[in-house]
């Protein structure tokens, strides 16, 4: 048995990225009995925090940022995790098994490397330079946007995806005028199906949101460093005081360029979350192969930053089971809480098993070839959803067994 820090002790696990997925991986490893050093490297100088409330309660002013803390550096250090915050990984040497760090050109050796650098808000070429243009990804972004959303202000939301529409709903509750510009004619149809997407967009119209679907921002009118109007490719002009760009998030992989790892909007990894020799990826940055869905995909939902770390920790402790989560996301839209379990198949419409889209509560299930693929629900009674979730989980397990036995 080697003494801590003594000669011959393995360098242990290095986790790059100290947000939800990275810190959860470190904690799960230690709780699972991992005995060698664990080093957590993070470029943000704040404690790991939870992001979903940023577009919900935080923006409404109902949730304090302090309540979002997932853990503190002191908590992590108390679990024998070495935390290096304010340090940025700048490169990776797969052969030498070392992570390169900023400032002093330091090198951090690893036995296993966990990449958990997450994602960052995509920028809009035309809009980024202006002072009243926001994105929403970090706690600081939420604080800045919240300060700008005063009653009577005109907000232009560029991008009608989940975050854009969630902010639109929150902004309406704050007395803000909202216009959403979205290139797709039926925003979110790929995530929710056509009928549910229509239902959601109708909800926004009923709440006074000006939806400009099938349109893009082609130009801007500015007054010095502020945007005063968005000029759409249709020629329409939308006057704005504040703009939110919500066009998705791109994986943060710049530091891995040239490392030899396969990067494709994410760290391409296999069904064991492995990207290379001794290298794993977890959370928003990972584009892992999903053995049930039979494709590589980047799951950007919150549960993936919870389940992924637990699974990866077990793998690093010696288990070998594929990571095949049932994807899950939820969104708060006005008084509706919409939840989707599984992946809604393209072109498939739901069969309503409880209520319907005109009712206050509903549960819809999606099937292809008689197989359950997804369950969607709005404000549903838990007991109306649970049997379908169990069936869906069972479906994934059966599919996994079939894949593993070569059928």
């Amino acid at each position, binding site marked *: 048995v080697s003494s801590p820090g003594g000669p011959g002790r393995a360098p242990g696990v290095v986790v790059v990225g100290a947000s939800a997925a990275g810190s959860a991986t470190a904690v*799960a490893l230690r709780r699972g009995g991992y005995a060698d050093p664990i080093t957590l490297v993070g470029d943000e100088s704040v404690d790991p925090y939870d992001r*979903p409330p940023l577009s919900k309660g935080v923006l409404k002013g109902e949730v304090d940022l302090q*309540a979002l803390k997932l853990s503190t550096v002191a908590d992590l250090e108390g679990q024998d995790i070495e935390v290096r915050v304010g340090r940025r990984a700048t490169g990776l040497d797969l052969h030498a098994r070392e992570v390169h760090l900023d400032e002093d050109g330091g090198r951090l050796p690893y036995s296993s490397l966990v990449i958990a650098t997450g994602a960052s808000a995509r920028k809009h070429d035309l809009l980024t330079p202006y002072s009243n243009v926001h994105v929403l990804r970090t706690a600081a972004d939420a604080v800045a946007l919240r300060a700008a959303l005063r009653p009577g202000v005109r907000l232009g939301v560029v991008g009608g995806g989940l975050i854009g529409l969630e902010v639109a709903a929150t902004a309406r509750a704050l007395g803000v005028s909202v216009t959403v510009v979205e290139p797709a004619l039926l925003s979110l149809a790929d995530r929710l199906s056509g009928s549910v997407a229509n239902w959601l967009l109708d909800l926004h119209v009923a709440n006074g949101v000006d939806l400009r679907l099938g349109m893009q921002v082609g130009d801007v009118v500015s007054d010095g460093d502020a945007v005063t109007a968005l000029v759409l490719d249709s020629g329409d002009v939308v006057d704005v005081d504040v703009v939110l760009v919500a066009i998705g998030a791109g994986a943060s992989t710049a530091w891995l360029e040239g490392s030899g790892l396969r990067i494709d909007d994410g760290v391409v990894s296999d069904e064991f979350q492995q990207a290379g020799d001794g290298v794993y990826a977890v959370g928003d940055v990972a584009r892992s192969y999903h053995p049930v869905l039979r494709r590589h995909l980047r799951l950007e939902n919150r*549960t993936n930053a*919870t389940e992924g770390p637990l699974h990866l920790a077990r793998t690093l402790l010696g288990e070998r089971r594929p990571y095949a989560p049932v994807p899950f996301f939820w969104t708060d839209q006005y008084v509706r809480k919409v*939840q989707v379990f599984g992946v809604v198949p393209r072109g498939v419409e739901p069969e309503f098993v409880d209520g319907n889209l005109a009712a206050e509560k509903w549960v819809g299930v999606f099937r292809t070839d008689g197989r359950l693929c997804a369950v969607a629900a709005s404000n*549903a*009674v*838990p007991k109306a959803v*649970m049997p379908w979730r169990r069936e869906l989980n069972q479906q994934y397990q059966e599919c996994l067994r079939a894949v593993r036995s070569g059928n």
Partner: protein
Amino acid sequence: MKIEIDEGKCIGAGNCVMVAEEVYDQRDDDAVAFLLDVDLDSADVQTSARAGAAACPAAAIRVNEGM
């Protein structure tokens, strides 16, 4: 062991119930999770309680091991 569920943080996903229905349940009206009347001194219950807390997507379940 002591379990605290932050009702303000709970989003009603029901993941705790999915992995540990013997420990957690959800209210019918708003789907908020609650702890069932269980013996938290039992090792099996503790294992389930931890698994349920770890599955929460909203970090709403706090497990205090030291009691």
